[in-house]
């Protein structure tokens, strides 16, 4: 319903509204209550606006501008008086409160208990506040006019005392912000606060550091070094740098672009090749796997002959980085890809290190692919920047012919790029790949189907693609399999039982050189992602938030390049493994990590930063990782769909402005409508009767179509551009979800409140000594709120991924002492399940005392009988002591009178026949001890006869 969408657009109404033109006054049927109600509210606002308009200028003021208020229940002065006061002073009067957040203040003398609970987090003031404000013609601090006294919250109990120290500061701030009120609007109170804050910074920092975990503290000390800090995520330009120098990033982006290009190429020639493919149903296939020899190294040295004969490795020159690629000279020394530079240097001191030359790689790769594309083929599949699969099935008839084609590819690549490629040929992808391994370096090798089995037999299982160390170990462990030949001996069912149906079958097949996979044309892209797992070092949660923000922006940039929007967002966090050292072997690397992932679905495809960022923060906090332990972060856009240009993206967070009929007759699409609507605002804002407090918003920059913008009149374009610029400002400067202009219109104290509110949600990074930025200002109060929130989150959320026994943080004893209501709130707030607490109740099982490893009466009787039999001349007195002591313990600790009685009776029974005097004495002694024990236990003596 069109009107519903507009409900917030006219909170105060335009005073220049024209009754006849307003669609609220159109006739409505009886069908839709919601629509009717919207119209009613709209009309009420129009009435208010008219009231304001009709008032004499002298009695008007802008005291309450930007504030919307509602009245509840009996008030003195009366409802209508208050209403007039509010409207007179530029406030928005709301008759029907549909959302608590839509109004700034609720005015009432008294709230019913249930309402008081509902409204406890909102501003509820007494009518006196309005009266006093109007009388003094300034906004008084509403806290003094609270209608609902805030309930003493026990949530503070859970926090260390350190927080209490801040309390004086908080009041100081409040005090200051109220001082500022009288000053002109452009003087933001934040400037005033800055002084006090820098003073407090030191204390705050040390205080905050105290609360850090060990790993975070380690990071803090690490990041104190400005050089190190520059190369970690703490540097705002980090992402840019990181992706500029990450080879993996380059590889993946190249691959993506190459794939796309190849896709376009194959698409254009598909009509030719598809027919060929069908024909070649059961025919002998010819697959060619072409790969550069040590790509990075050979490209880097291609123009320097003298280097080609020396051992060369490509790596970042700094400290402990990995070798990305090394030439065959270097390999002779035992240097391998992925080895650390320092290890390689010790193996071969004469090793020449070359830095990455990403531009060269790209150009070489392009040449390479152009050669491949020129070769007649059925299908070309990009594996990576330096590797490709070619299907030559319909173009060659024998392996010899294939070799000729391969030879021509090699020479052409050689002349074009000065680098060598190796070619492996086989009847399927697997064999081609295995042949390639054999072909390297600088050669061509083909495996005929009839030779395949023999060839495979001498390979080790790990040489097969898809068989990793764990599988090969399992194979060796269970079957004693080392080579593929051994693997061929195992039947299919055995493999499928141990490795699962699919993987077992796969193993069975590849051991026989059978590969059912086909070279298919590229499937469209399924995800877009940004991953950083180097240089990620955070100290505080805010650092992580800040970095996530940048990462999300990067993701959105990538998404916009691919022109997609996402349905699902996945966050991946690499967490330092439990026992991993704080400093991994690789300089600022990730080290040993556990991967935590979490994803969120969106009901509609989106690319809005605000929506996504909120979700990202939720995801991150729900993972509950210590910021100091984060070693890598990745964001992945899943379930992506092509961005529908005409998609409506409603900005729910800021009020929209809709077009006026008289200006825009006829149907329009949403984009135009919105822009035109803004045009209307711009025009009317110059008009004096326009109530300036009306909030309005421009759609986010991405939504404004440049073509529409260009058609607007010059002055309007300027206005819109200026506003867009404001929107595009750093998020740090302006809370992202707020319209800056709207913010500017607000009275200063309210603006501050709005900002603070937003800062809590946006979680701006805190101002700390370690990263002070000009203009980066955050009140300590907010900082604390963030910390508190964080502390709570941490405390409460049982970790989902890392399964840990969840121990309730509530001290049962403390809880017990509290009054009942407080207990309830504490329990509720902490969300500690009663069941969890119940575990805390200690249930001490009744101890059963063993005597000579015997517990039950029958066993003990047997024991006694043997004892009696073996010592006919009377028992050892120490044994008697021992036994009677045991009986005493049974009475006092095990609390089983019956057992004692039974045992003593048994002894008496044993002695009844022979009446051995020594035994009689022993029994009497035991009875004595037993009665003593009874006395200690405060029970009367036991009946024993």
């Amino acid at each position, binding site marked *: 319903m069109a009107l519903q969408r507009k409900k917030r657009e006219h909170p105060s109404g335009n005073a220049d509204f024209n009754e006849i033109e307003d669609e609220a006054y159109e006739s409505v049927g009886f069908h839709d209550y919601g629509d009717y109600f919207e119209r009613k509210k709209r009309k009420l606002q129009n009435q208010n606006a008219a009231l304001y308009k009709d008032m004499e200028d002298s009695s008007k003021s802008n005291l309450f501008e930007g504030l919307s208020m509602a009245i509840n229940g009996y008030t003195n002065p009366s409802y209508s008086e208050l209403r007039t006061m509010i409207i007179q002073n530029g406030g928005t009067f709301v008759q029907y409160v549909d959302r608590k957040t839509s109004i700034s203040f609720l005015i009432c003398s008294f709230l019913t208990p249930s309402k008081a609970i509902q409204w406890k987090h909102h501003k509820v003031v007494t009518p006196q506040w309005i009266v006093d404000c109007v009388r003094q013609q300034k906004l008084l601090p509403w806290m003094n006019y609270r209608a609902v006294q805030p309930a003493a919250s026990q949530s503070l109990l859970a926090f260390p005392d350190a927080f209490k120290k801040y309390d004086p500061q908080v009041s100081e701030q409040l005090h200051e912000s109220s001082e500022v009120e009288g000053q002109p609007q452009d003087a933001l109170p934040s400037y005033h606060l800055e002084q006090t804050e820098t003073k407090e910074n030191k204390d705050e920092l040390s205080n905050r550091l105290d609360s850090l975990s060990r790993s975070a503290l380690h990071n803090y000390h690490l990041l104190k070094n400005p050089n190190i800090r520059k190369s970690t995520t703490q540097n705002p330009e980090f992402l840019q740098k990181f992706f500029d120098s990450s080879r993996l990033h380059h590889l993946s982006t190249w691959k993506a672009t190459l794939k796309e290009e190849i896709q376009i190429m194959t698409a254009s020639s598909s009509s030719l090749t598809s027919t060929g493919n069908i024909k070649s149903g059961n025919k002998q296939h010819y697959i060619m796997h072409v790969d550069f020899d040590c790509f990075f190294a050979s490209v880097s040295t291609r123009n320097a002959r003298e280097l080609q004969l020396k051992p060369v490795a490509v790596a970042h020159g700094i400290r402990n980085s990995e070798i990305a690629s090394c030439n065959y000279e270097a390999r002779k020394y035992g240097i391998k890809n992925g080895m650390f530079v320092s290890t390689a240097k010790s193996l071969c001191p004469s090793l020449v290190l070359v830095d990455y030359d990403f531009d060269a790689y790209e150009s070489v790769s392009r040449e390479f692919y152009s050669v491949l594309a020129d070769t007649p083929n059925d299908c070309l599949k990009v594996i990576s920047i330096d590797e490709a699969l070619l299907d030559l099935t319909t173009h060659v008839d024998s392996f010899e012919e294939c070799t000729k084609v391969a030879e021509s590819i090699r020479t052409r690549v050689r002349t074009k790029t000065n680098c060598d490629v190796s070619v492996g040929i086989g009847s399927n992808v697997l064999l081609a790949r295995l042949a390639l391994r054999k072909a390297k370096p600088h050669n061509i090798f083909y495996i005929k189907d009839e030779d395949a089995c023999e060839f495979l037999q001498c390979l080790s299982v790990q040489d097969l693609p898809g068989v990793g160390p764990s599988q090969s170990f399992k194979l060796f462990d269970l079957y004693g399999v080392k080579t593929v030949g051994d693997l061929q001996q195992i039947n299919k069912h055995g493999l499928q039982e141990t490795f699962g149906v699919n993987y077992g079958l796969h193993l069975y097949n590849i051991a026989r050189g059978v590969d059912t996979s086909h070279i298919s044309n590229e499937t469209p892209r399924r995800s877009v992602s940004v991953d950083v797992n180097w240089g990620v070092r955070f100290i505080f949660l805010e650092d992580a938030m800040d970095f996530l923000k940048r990462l999300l922006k990067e993701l959105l940039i990538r998404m916009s390049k691919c022109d997609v929007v996402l349905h699902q967002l996945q966050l991946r966090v690499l967490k330092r493994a439990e026992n991993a050292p704080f400093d991994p072997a690789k300089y600022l690397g990730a080290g040993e990590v556990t991967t935590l992932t979490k994803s969120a679905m969106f009901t509609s495809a989106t690319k809005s930063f605000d929506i996504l960022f909120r979700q990202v923060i939720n995801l991150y906090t729900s993972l509950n990782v210590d910021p100091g332990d984060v070693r890598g972060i990745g964001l992945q856009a899943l379930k992506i769909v092509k961005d529908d240009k005409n998609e409506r993206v409603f900005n729910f967070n800021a009020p929209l402005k809709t077009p006026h009929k008289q200006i825009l007759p006829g149907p329009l699409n949403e984009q135009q409508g919105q822009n035109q609507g803004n045009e209307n605002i711009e025009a009317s804002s110059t008009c004096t009767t326009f109530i300036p407090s009306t909030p309005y918003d421009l759609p986010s920059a991405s939504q404004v179509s440049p073509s529409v913008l260009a058609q607007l009149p010059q002055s309007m374009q300027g206005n819109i551009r200026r506003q867009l610029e404001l929107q595009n400002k750093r998020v740090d400067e302006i809370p992202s979800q707020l319209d800056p202009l709207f913010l500017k219109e607000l009275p200063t104290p309210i603006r501050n409140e709005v900002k603070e509110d937003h800062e809590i949600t946006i979680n701006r990074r805190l101002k700390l000594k370690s990263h002070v930025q000009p203009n980066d200002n955050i009140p300590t109060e907010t900082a604390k709120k963030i910390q508190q929130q964080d502390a709570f989150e941490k405390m409460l959320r049982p970790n989902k991924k890392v399964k840990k026994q969840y121990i309730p943080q509530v001290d049962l004893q403390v809880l017990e002492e509290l009054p009942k209501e407080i207990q309830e709130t504490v*329990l509720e707030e902490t969300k500690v399940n*009663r069941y969890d607490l119940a575990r805390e109740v200690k249930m*001490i099982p009744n101890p059963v005392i063993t005597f000579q490893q015997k517990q039950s009466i029958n066993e003990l009787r047997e024991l006694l009988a043997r004892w009696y039999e073996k010592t006919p001349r009377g028992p050892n007195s120490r044994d008697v002591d021992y036994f009677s002591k045991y009986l005493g313990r049974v009475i006092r600790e095990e609390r089983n009178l019956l057992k004692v009685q039974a045992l003593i009776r048994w002894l008496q029974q044993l002695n009844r026949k022979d009446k051995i005097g020594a035994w009689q004495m022993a029994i009497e002694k035991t009875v004595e001890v037993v009665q003593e024990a009874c006395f200690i236990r405060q029970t009367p003596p036991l009946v024993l006869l």
Partner: protein
Amino acid sequence: MAAEDSYWTVKLIVCIHCILCNRQLYPESLFIKSRKYNTVVWQSRHPILCNYIQDAVEACAHELQGGTVECIYLSITSKDHVELERYIFSAYSIPRIPDFLLEKPISPRVPYSDSFVESLRAAIIRVQNATRSLEQLPEDCSWSIRLSLKENSSRPKAWETWYLSEHTPETDLERRYQNLTIPLRNISIGPMDSELWLESRPDAYKMEN
């Protein structure tokens, strides 16, 4: 009443009925034979007596839930208010549970199985045998249900409804010297262990008689 306590209360009610019958505190014709825990028990048919027992036990159960009760006992007193017999059902193994945990049953599982029934049956049979074999009580005896609390708990939860018994250190000491303990049976149900025993004052019967 929470499920955990129901077995306790039922057991208590059954025992009380049996004891009252066997000790002939009421005419035997008021009782009928009934079957509980797969054994024969006596059950009072007098509605007032039944209700009284029910109410008394419920009040006990209320206290039991908090785990502050040391033991519940049925004491039989002569017309001079001399305690002649005391049947003790100890409850020391019920852990102390804070009030706020009691509002909802902690777990809905009923700890009731055949082995429990066995244990209960054994106890009931013991109670029946022991009570029958005791000497006859003098005339005009009375009985009451009492409970004693664990050391550090000062008063029952519903303390307004309970009477303070004339329990002095002297009477306690006297009891310990003059009474005799006849162990009955321990009932162990899971970690909950309840000891049953009976304290009688053999000389008292003669004095009365």
